[in-house]
């Protein structure tokens, strides 16, 4: 247990030491999104009946920040350690593969939740955001960031260069996030896009997370939670398999 807690502590300390870049900067950039959308779209769109667009948008942006930062944390830590070579100190240790993965995931969850909480707290001062069922909010925030944390571990192991990691982020994570309903309800989409959206696991995270605020969602939240959990387990098993096989880590 000490080994696992140490790796977790190291991962937390790693991003906390550069907190301006890893926590404060994403909070500010997410708030900039909000500011722009608030001014441009507030008067034009109503996603749910009676819910102003900005209030609808805030949970989506919070969850987007949670997910993106969870992914960024584990993936950047893994690739930096690989490229600089200091991953060797973890690989030489008696830590189990499960301990390694769990430490990376939990550190990602903590960073994701810190950024998400930061965005929420700032918006709370300016907007009246309902809190229908906070348990769902916490459940989806934790599961969503855990899934992205596990995905970040895989991306960090797979990528040989920062360039490849950026490609993973820009061509997989970003489109899945932007097309998951952060900025809109999928009911506003044409039927074909609605079907496609249901194939995107990120959609269920956003939808379930938003349910915790408004008590309304496109999909029943327990259904979304099952789908997100299944995806998390599948991604985690793949990450364990990569760690165990030594793929791109051990010769």
């Amino acid at each position, binding site marked *: 247990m000490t080994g696992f807690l140490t790796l977790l502590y190291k991962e937390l300390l790693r991003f906390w030491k550069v907190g301006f870049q890893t926590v404060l900067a994403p909070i500010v950039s997410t708030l900039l999104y909000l500011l722009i959308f608030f001014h441009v779209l507030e008067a034009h769109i109503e996603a749910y009946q009676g819910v102003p667009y900005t209030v609808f948008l805030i949970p989506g942006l919070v969850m987007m920040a949670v997910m993106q930062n969870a992914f960024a944390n584990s993936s950047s830590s893994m690739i930096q350690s690989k490229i600089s070579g200091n991953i060797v*100190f973890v690989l030489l*240790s*008696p830590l189990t593969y499960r301990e390694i993965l769990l430490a990376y995931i939990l550190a990602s969850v903590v960073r994701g939740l810190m950024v998400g909480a930061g965005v929420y707290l700032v918006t709370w001062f300016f907007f009246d955001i309902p809190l229908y069922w906070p348990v769902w909010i916490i459940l989806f925030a934790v599961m969503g960031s855990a899934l992205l944390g596990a995905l970040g571990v895989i991306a960090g192991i797979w990528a040989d260069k920062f360039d490849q990691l950026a490609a993973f982020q820009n061509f997989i994570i970003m489109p899945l996030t932007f097309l998951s309903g952060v900025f809109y309800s999928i009911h506003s989409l044409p039927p074909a896009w609605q079907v496609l959206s249901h194939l995107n696991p990120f959609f269920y995270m956003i939808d379930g997370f938003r349910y915790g605020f408004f008590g309304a969602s496109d999909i029943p939240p327990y259904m979304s939670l099952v789908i997100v959990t299944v995806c998390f387990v599948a991604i985690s098993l793949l990450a364990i398999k990569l760690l165990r096989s030594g793929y791109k880590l051990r010769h």
Partner: protein
Amino acid sequence: MDSVLAIEVKKVCKYFGSFCALDHIDLEIREGEFFALLGPNGAGKTTLINTIAGLALADSGSVHVMGNHVVNQYRLARRQLGVVPQELVFDPFFTVRETLIIQSGYYGISKNKTWIDEIIERLGLTDKAHANMRALSGGMKRRVMVAQALVHKPPVIILDEPTAGVDVELRQSLWDFIKQLNIEGHTIVLTTHYLEEAEALCSRVAMLKQGKVIALNSIQSLINTMTAGYSLRLRLQPDNLPPGLQEKQVTHHNGFYELRMDSYRQIESVLAQLRENKIQILEMQLLQPDLEAVFVNLMKNPVSET
């Protein structure tokens, strides 16, 4: 009953594509030994170390550390092993002390201040304990890597070229520390290109070439079997060798005759023959065979196919 083997390598092969990096390596290192792995660049020393440490996976064969299989019982094996990797690597986010506390924690040791303080002091890192790793010189970073390998007091310590790029002072203090650890019972395995270091420190050596162990013995046995005794270098006045000594002559170069001696006892007869022939000795050197001579001899011969 035999003592426990610190490291047991059995028929290990390792390929990188079609390149055979380790070719049926068999090696046993006993507990408490001070052992050197020698060989030219690309011989397979680091690959062998990585295989023992679990950083590389053997394609066939098995490796045990203190009786624990390095793959099937990797947790037990890794607890017994401290490795100083050859490449200079560090985590730029942390200070020296943080680095060591974290490394200690990976091995399940949470209260390790006394030992960490001791290794910091013994490796001359006291002034740098709170400095960020990025701010250290190459030699200092190397010291921290040694400290990281020792932080869990492993019974088996492997040092892959620990003195590469390190100043003389540290080299001396590092070896003093490692010798002390060996006296306390730790098994030490090192690779180095400084053969005089291996000769001064180690009891046994394995020489690797093209992925094979081409010699494995105590240093003295290797010197005795792989070299042709002592050499006596003489500058003479007049510059000619009596006929009785000509069969011992190896070279005549730059005014020096080099004679092969099988033992010290032959020196007296050489001197006697020179006296008889009224030849005066202007300069005399007795050269003892060393590990370098063994190394050079072995490396110039092609590796035999098995």
